[in-house]
């Protein structure tokens, strides 16, 4: 089987994503077991300094072009599709990230290569890669056997150990030109919009009382706020709460929100979808209250209760008040 493994080394603002090391670690393990090679693919402009931490790879292919300075899907898909069709890796690992969500399906279509999303495990079996995906908000696992010249696996962040792919030292670097003109593309990067400071910083709070769709209405957030106040904590939330404009985006935990590591993360009416878990799974203590015994949050929490938050919040508030008075 073809165990040449390519890993897309995505970066933003001069920093490689943690995801890159998670993927490199997994790629390394597969390659070592099957006598394969790991190649990190680093596309960008003046990013050669980033190769210094890619020691877990055997080689880095550095694609250097001004049009790759900041991410826009078209130029990236162009250079990556060309590279992959020339080098024909057996497996291409792409993060399930904002960039990876644009890249992987486009590459799959352009190269007519099979692609599987939301992967949490990869094994080999004969000529197949066997990929396990976590779907339905974490409620269903799907195991897929995939054959193809290049198999594209989109990997969920936070699943593989980052330390396994963290190795100092620059591997052999091959620099490749991209030979592109701005006129070749119908899109271009314009600018960054940085988050506004102002609201409190949930990444610094030792206690997060976090609400999900189970809280039902904006008014009910007050219940969580009172609990947080008694405990000396702060209210955070899952994405739907922010999408409803019930809380500002600064309170959002997860893939597109903040990554938090409080001493206590109290998840109230949060199902535990992978995009949420990505942002809170490293909290010291995770406690979840949810009416659904199958809620995936119970597999990341340390303690759980299958109960209605509208019963538990007031009861807990009462007992807290009693204790602290």
């Amino acid at each position, binding site marked *: 089987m073809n165990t040449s493994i390519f890993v897309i080394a995505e970066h933003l603002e001069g920093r490689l994503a943690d995801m890159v090391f998670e993927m490199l670690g997994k790629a390394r393990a597969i390659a070592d077991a099957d006598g394969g090679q790991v190649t990190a693919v680093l596309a960008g402009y003046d990013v050669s300094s980033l190769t210094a931490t890619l020691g877990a790879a055997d080689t880095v292919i550095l694609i250097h072009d001004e049009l790759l300075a900041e991410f826009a899907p078209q130029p990236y*898909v162009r250079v990556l599709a060309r590279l992959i069709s020339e080098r024909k890796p057996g497996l291409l690992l792409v993060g399930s990230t904002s960039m990876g969500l644009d890249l992987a399906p486009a590459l799959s279509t352009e190269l007519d290569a099979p692609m599987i999303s939301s992967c949490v495990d990869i094994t080999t079996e004969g000529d197949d890669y066997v990929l396990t995906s976590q779907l339905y908000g974490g409620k269903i696992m799907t195991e897929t*056997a995939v054959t193809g010249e290049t198999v594209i696996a989109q990997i969920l962040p936070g699943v593989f150990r980052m330390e396994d792919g963290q190795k100092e030292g620059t591997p052999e670097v091959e620099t490749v030109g991209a030979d592109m003109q701005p006129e070749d593309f119908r899109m271009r990067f314009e600018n960054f919009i940085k988050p506004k400071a102002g609201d409190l910083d949930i990444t610094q709070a030792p206690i997060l009382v976090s609400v999900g769709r189970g809280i039902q209405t904006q008014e009910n957030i007050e219940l969580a706020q009172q609990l947080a106040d008694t405990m000396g904590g702060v209210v955070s939330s899952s994405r739907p709460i922010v999408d409803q404009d019930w809380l500002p985006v600064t309170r959002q935990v997860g893939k597109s929100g903040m990554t938090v590591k409080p001493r206590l993360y109290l998840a109230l009416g949060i199902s535990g979808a992978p995009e949420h878990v990505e942002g809170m799974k490293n909290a010291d203590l995770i406690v979840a209250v949810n009416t659904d015994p199958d809620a995936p949050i119970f597999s990341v929490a340390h303690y759980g209760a299958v109960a209605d938050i509208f019963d538990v919040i007031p009861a807990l508030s009462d007992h807290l008040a009693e204790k602290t008075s």
Partner: protein
Amino acid sequence: MNILVILKHVPDLVEELEINAEGTDLDRSWMRYIPSEYDEHALEQAILLKEEHGGTVTALTLQIGEVEDTLFTASAKGADRLVRIEGDFEGISSRNAAAVYADHVRRNSYDLILTGVQAYDDLEGPVGARLAAMLALPYVGVVSGLHVDPTAGVVHLHKEYPGGMLTVIRTELPAVVGIQSAMKPPRYVPIAKIRQASKSAAIEEADAPADALQPAPYNIRRVSKPQSGGRAEMIEGSTDDIAVRLLEIFTEHGLVR
């Protein structure tokens, strides 16, 4: 401006998911389907754009589950044209769905095609990116805001990154955009208005191209519920028991004094 919104139905996670006897798919016989959350945002964004710039909004679905309600709801919210592609599409792959949509887009004329960004049942990545690649159109996904400049024929897209960071990408029209969230929360329409739409609006039925559906380049071997290993220690008992135990745990961890 003519906008196409592609709406997808996904199994409702509020219902318990069952797995078929072979263990290779969900048991879809009693499945309840709902519109994918991000598609509701895509529809909202399309209507916001229509309100701002004029034009038409077409809502397109494959025939999966009770899509009529979804289409009439879209009409009640302001969609002008409702199209349903007929066929047996339950469990269709993203690749094949994209091929069916591509055929529709080729036979119509749209300035902007909005899809959701990633449905939770999606095994093959966002359809929008595939559709765009098939049509050689630009695609940007994970978008949570956009400004169209009709005279220049471009759209400025806000693409999301972790921590509330956005980048702006300027893209020529026509383009395909994967919407993560609309610039306003999806509007609510009363049932009465949807019922009214079901009487006044017509659903156009279209056929899928014969060659669109290809066998998948993979084999789904096993569909299962996650192992309950590494599970939380569950607290049993009455509400009061739970509250008392939680307080104990918080105290043990030095979180309350």
